[in-house]
């Protein structure tokens, strides 16, 4: 029975419990041993243990009262410069009492911070190094400005290996008394690709039916969780149905609130998987996709930009058909 989300229930509480990223974990352990932590950047894809590692580091360092020495902020929710000016500074400048002279500030999804906020943060990092160490967490370290990067120890997290994830999922299934069929396990890896949070969410959602988990159930859960059907949208466009594919796009962005940047990322992946697109075309399309991606960053409208991409796909589909 689930009283909470398994991803939280089974989140490791100490560095020792972490099942992956062993090199990173070893280095973090040495920080704990030396009672000193530099500013860090944890970069890597979602569900690979970045936040967990930061929390474990703090807990190992300060013990059970770690909450008193730690602040967790999420840049996605408060991404402006005021967040740095007020919240971060206030926390950073006050000295910690206790054996360790500095506090830890975890700044999650830091790649979503505005440029101004990052500049302000850089000054704060310099001024309050004595009293506060930052752990910046990001999917892409490239989105963090150079001066901050150069002040941080970089850690690169990678997707979990299949054996590690499988073993972990099986142990949880056992604890939760859920029957996990081998094909179900395969399917979870296929849809999560080593993103452990996603894998656990899928497992828990599939388990809520109270039946042994098969691959079919996993796919059904994923289908229900991600109605955003990028593949179908692309197929409609390639077939020449621009209006139909634009409707799909609308459904995703407006009804399900999928961000344009997420759609474009999926489009990019899907285009390379499409079997009926001739290979040289894939590169041509990648160029268009890249341009749209860039425009989205520049503040253009998600739907309009993605529609223009769909129109290009309609054109490409037409040209492919008439070239042969």
């Amino acid at each position: 029975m689930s009283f909470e989300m398994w991803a939280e229930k089974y989140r490791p509480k100490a560095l020792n419990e972490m099942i992956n990223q062993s090199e990173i974990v070893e280095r973090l352990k040495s920080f704990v041993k030396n009672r000193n932590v530099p500013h860090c950047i944890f970069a890597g894809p979602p569900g690979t243990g970045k936040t967990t590692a930061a929390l474990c580091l703090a807990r190992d360092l300060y013990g059970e009262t770690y909450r008193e020495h730690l602040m967790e902020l999420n840049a996605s929710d408060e991404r402006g410069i005021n967040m740095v000016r007020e919240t971060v500074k206030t926390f950073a400048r006050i000295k910690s009492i206790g054996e360790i002279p500095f506090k830890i500030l975890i700044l999650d999804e830091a790649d979503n911070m505005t440029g101004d906020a990052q500049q302000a943060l850089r000054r704060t990092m310099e001024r309050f190094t004595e009293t506060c160490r930052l752990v910046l967490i990001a999917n892409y370290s490239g989105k963090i400005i150079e001066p901050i990067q150069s002040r941080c120890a970089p850690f690169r997290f990678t997707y979990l290996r299949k054996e590690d994830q499988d073993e972990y999922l099986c142990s949880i299934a056992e604890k939760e008394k859920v029957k996990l069929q081998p094909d179900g396990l395969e399917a979870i890896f296929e849809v999560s690709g080593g993103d452990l949070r996603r894998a656990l969410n899928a497992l828990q959602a599939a388990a809520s039916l109270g039946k042994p988990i098969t691959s079919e159930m996993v796919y059904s859960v994923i289908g229900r969780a991600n109605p955003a059907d990028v593949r179908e949208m692309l197929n409609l466009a390639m077939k020449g149905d621009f209006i139909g594919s634009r409707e799909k796009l609308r459904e995703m962005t407006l009804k399900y609130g999928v961000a344009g940047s997420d759609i474009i990322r999926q489009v990019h992946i899907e285009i390379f998987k499409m079997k009926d697109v001739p290979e040289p075309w894939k590169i041509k399309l990648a160029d268009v996709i890249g341009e749209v991606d860039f425009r989205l960053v520049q503040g253009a409208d998600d739907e309009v930009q993605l529609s223009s991409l769909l129109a290009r796909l309609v054109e490409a589909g037409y040209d492919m058909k008439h070239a042969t």
Partner: protein
Amino acid sequence: MYAAWSFKHKPKSLSQIVGNEEAIQRLVGWVKSWEKGIPKRRAAFLYGPPGIGKTVTVEALANDLNMELVERNASDHRTEEAVRKFAGLASQSGTLFGKRRLILFDEVDGITGREDRGGVGAITQIAKAALVPIILIANNAYDQRLGSLRYYCEAIEFKKPAAGAVMKHLKRICDREGIKADEAALKFIAQRSEGDVRSAVNDLQALAQGKTTLTYDDVSWLAYRDRKEAIFNILRMIFYGKSADQAKHAVDMADVDPDMLFEWIYENLPHHLRDPHDLANAMNSLATADLYRGRIARTQNWVLTRYVIDFMTAGVAMAREKTQPAGFVPLKFPERIKLLSQTRAERHMKSAIGGKIKKRCHISAKSATRDILPYIRIIFEDNAQNAAHLAQWLDLDETMIEYMAGSKKQTKAIMKNIT
């Protein structure tokens, strides 16, 4: 049960009627004058544009003065003979039970067609000889064929009530329907109706029925509903324009702001430019216009607006190479504007739940909404017991639970499990 609000919330008393105070006073005075004997003019003739409460006034009047109202619609009694049958009523002075009688002959301008020859004459006869008050109603008092009729009547003009008065009426309906409506939203509907209270009420019903709140965003898109024809021509100028200049000129002719025109173009473009190359180039041009909008939003450099205009009009016009002008293509309202306001409540709910998840799962509210909420929703739909535990763990309130459960039945099942 579905009932038209213009009917359901019809004023029952004169005090509930908005506007036309002066006209109503004159009418009341005239009806009351019958108590002292038959007045010089035996019929009253109310005229004015549709939907401003002429009929409603008479009905409320009869109610207030406790009179028996005999109501006939001229459209149903079109010939002279039919009118004469009706005339009998007017020659009796009261009912069996002593209630005084009031006769209403509505839409008299509806009987002036050729086949109704004699109808107006018959009504005139009745008006001259009536023994009880007769009230005639028409939209157009100066219709020549009604000329002789007007002469024998107390003519009272009804005018369009001011927007403020219409608003008052809308507010009363919202109160009775239990809808919390923004003042701005009601003002917008009232102004748009231009004094036609009935159409305002109909609009209100279409927009607000089944809701508990009504915001300005829910109603604002209506503004463009009326301008269809003008927009239609402007879009054709842009899609089929032969010169860049001509296409750009379309913007000056449109009485919508460039952002809204952009939406119209964006929505309708694919229905016109059917050739894949033309479509792709035109959409690319729109995307370029949109890129400039993004730059304006970031830099607040409004000078760049001229490039937005260039690309959304001339750029689109010049994209057409192979597509021939299509025959009639129906105009499509910019769907996403409607969708945006329709899905707003849902997006609010989702981000509120995302905020709850954030507190538990070390993740931003945004990512929580995107990555975790869908899975939790599956659990809510499939397993009431687990859902109840999660609801408590996340501290969700009942509306959130209802949203996640997806059905009333499942919500109940979950609530039962909450301790």
